[in-house]
């Protein structure tokens, strides 16, 4: 298959949908066929969420199959681990370093796994990014999604100017400056 498949994963409410929208739009304006599959509804209430993004010459299925993902872009570490199995053999993980313990962990029924970074590295090339801190430094902890998008952008073959243009058009006007800063910081991480 010649197209690219990306999973954007995180915890409901973390803003994964904005990232997939930006990514999809960048691919579209680069002349590709694009499909994005989002999660709305129940899981948005703090559950594990996954958005599928696929682009290439012609894309039929909006879902990235298990073993088909080129990238897993994770907004939370445990979610990176949960979805890492979707990667191709030579896939890449880009993950936020943040931990958000799910309720079964808080209640002591299950343990938040230790050494997630090491586990991920055994699965695939892993970039662990302190996206929370970088976002805060840029002026808003909420910009985590755009920081991570910046890291991914460096790996993909789209024009950087196109990314900035789409971000400017997509995020709320008041937050453009912060988001562009966050994107550039992310772009420079690796």
């Amino acid at each position: 298959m010649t197209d690219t498949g990306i999973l954007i994963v995180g915890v409901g409410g973390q803003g994964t949908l904005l990232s997939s929208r930006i990514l999809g739009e960048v691919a579209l304006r680069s002349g590709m066929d694009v499909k994005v599959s989002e999660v709305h509804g129940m899981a948005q209430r703090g559950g594990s969420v996954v958005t599928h993004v696929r682009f290439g010459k012609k894309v039929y299925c909006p879902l990235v199959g298990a073993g088909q993902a080129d990238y897993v872009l994770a907004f939370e570490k445990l979610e990176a681990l949960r979805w890492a199995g979707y990667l191709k053999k030579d896939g890449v993980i880009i993950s936020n370093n943040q931990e958000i313990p799910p309720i079964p962990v808080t209640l002591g029924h299950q343990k938040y796994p230790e050494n997630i970074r090491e586990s991920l590295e055994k699965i695939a090339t892993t970039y662990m990014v302190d996206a929370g801190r970088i976002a805060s430094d840029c002026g808003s902890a909420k910009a985590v999604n755009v920081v991570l998008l910046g890291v991914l952008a460096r790996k993909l073959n789209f024009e950087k100017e196109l990314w900035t243009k789409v971000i400017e058009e997509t995020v709320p006007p008041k937050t453009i400056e912060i988001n562009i800063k966050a994107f550039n910081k992310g772009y420079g991480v690796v």
Partner: protein
Amino acid sequence: MKKLLLGNEAVAQGAYEAGVRVVSAYPGTPSTEITENVARFDEIYTEWAPNEKVALEVAVGAAIAGARAMACMKHVGLNVAADPLFTSSYTGINGGLVIVVADDPGMHSSQNEQDSRYYGRAAHIPVLEPSDSQEAKDFTKLAFEISEKYDTPVILRMATRISHSRSLVEIGQRSDVHLKDYTKDIGKYVMMPAMARRRRNILVEREKSLKQYSEEAELNRIEYNDRSIGIIAAGGAYNYAKEAVPGASFLKLGMVYPLPEKLIKSFAREVERLFVIEELETFIEDYVRTLGLDVIGKELFPKTGELSYEVIASKLKEAGINKEVLNLSFENCKAPNVNEIPLRPPALCPGCPHRGVYYVLKKLNLTVTGDIGCYTLGALPPLSSMDTCICMGASVSSAHGLEKARGKEFARKTVAVIGDSTFIHSGITGLIDVVYNNGTSTVIILDNSTTGMTGHQEHPATGYDIKGRPANKLNMEKLCEAVGVKRVRVEDPFEIKKFQKAVQEEISADEPSVIIARRPCALLKRVKSKNKPYCVNTETCIECGLCLELGCPAITNRSLISIDETMCNGCGLCADVCPTNSITRGDICD
């Protein structure tokens, strides 16, 4: 111009281009964004109705009046709207009428996995099924044409992965469709036996013509390729199958009812092995079998949940299909053992007013008949305070059933919980039953001023309409009093002690009672909390874990109990339950 649209946005765009004038709907995942997007067009009158039956009746009325009209709902909503559905098939329409229904294979956000295609067959209404956003738009427009040409309502069947996937759509102009003349015609619009019998015959004739249309229409098309394998598929399943065996021959169906008999037979003749690939029930497969054709379907492919291209490819391999034509390139990385990874079920948000209610219900150890909404999450640990959840409205009526089966003593330990939107949707009729038939149930209406679960839609008791304009605000207290409940009280679910006392008093009462637990949803923009986050004084905290029993995502327990200040909404419920006063507002413990 091409845009990347959700399937749901594409349906809205299609309705706009088709010149639709009236849209009525009740929210429900995965259908909600259709109506939300229609509401952005000033040319279309759009409303949230109290339930799907009302929504469809509004659309039927508008269609009879000569306008193109649409009603939108999720699959279970069509059960509620089934009554007008069946008879609108008899009356036919005047202006075009389209019913959009979104199924949820895999039950991402639903209580069952029912298959709406059967409604088309049962009510003799044609069903179109798109497989991407462009088709979602095109089929919506086509549905209106079919509706007017054949004088029939048309069902547009969506599904989660079509509704919630974005793909490219060519944007067009709104066509100028005039309001048709309205003329009184009781033979057509008054369905009593004499007239309905005549219409019944017309319906049978109409179905024959629609079948002919299905044979010839472009929306059912054959793609011949490798003829050793032929696949019949529609909607999302077509995409998965196309990905799994790009080189196979396909009969791609866009109209799934009535099915094209001749087209299917001729396709079957041309291919060596015939497969039907579909999600949910064996709707197409059963039909193909009635034609006496040799076909492989659900004996091979999974009967439940969503399909995927990987599953289809491996199943076809199992069935001996030549590996060369299959896309089997899913060679995973070294996958982690997913069973060892803690689950992350959805949970009530930090600051959610429902949490206070469930804390009290758990403490009192009551039997709780539940209902559908965010508050259904109160069934999960640690709150674990719900015994039943069937369908919208069932909490109230089934509490009454519990009482009639097990007696009044049992009712003294039972409450029904129901959300505000759900109460208006179909809880009110249950309450009327309780009062009328000498029940003594206690009903707690969780009034958070919004339809939370589906993403914060207005409803008749919020005081706003779908466009955010001020509207009449239904008075819940007066409504309950008017149906005959004498004990109606309003309580704040965050005043835990007072709330507990209220519940104890009302369950003891030998008559029906309603407690309206009133506090707005923490996510509502108009009430967003400016309260400072709370924090834990680790020196006085005795780690008793009572705060953890609230199941608040902001409270964590890693060696010490702490509160994540970015998540905490400052509601203070945890401080109320802490026996050592170790949880205090941020500005005090800094």
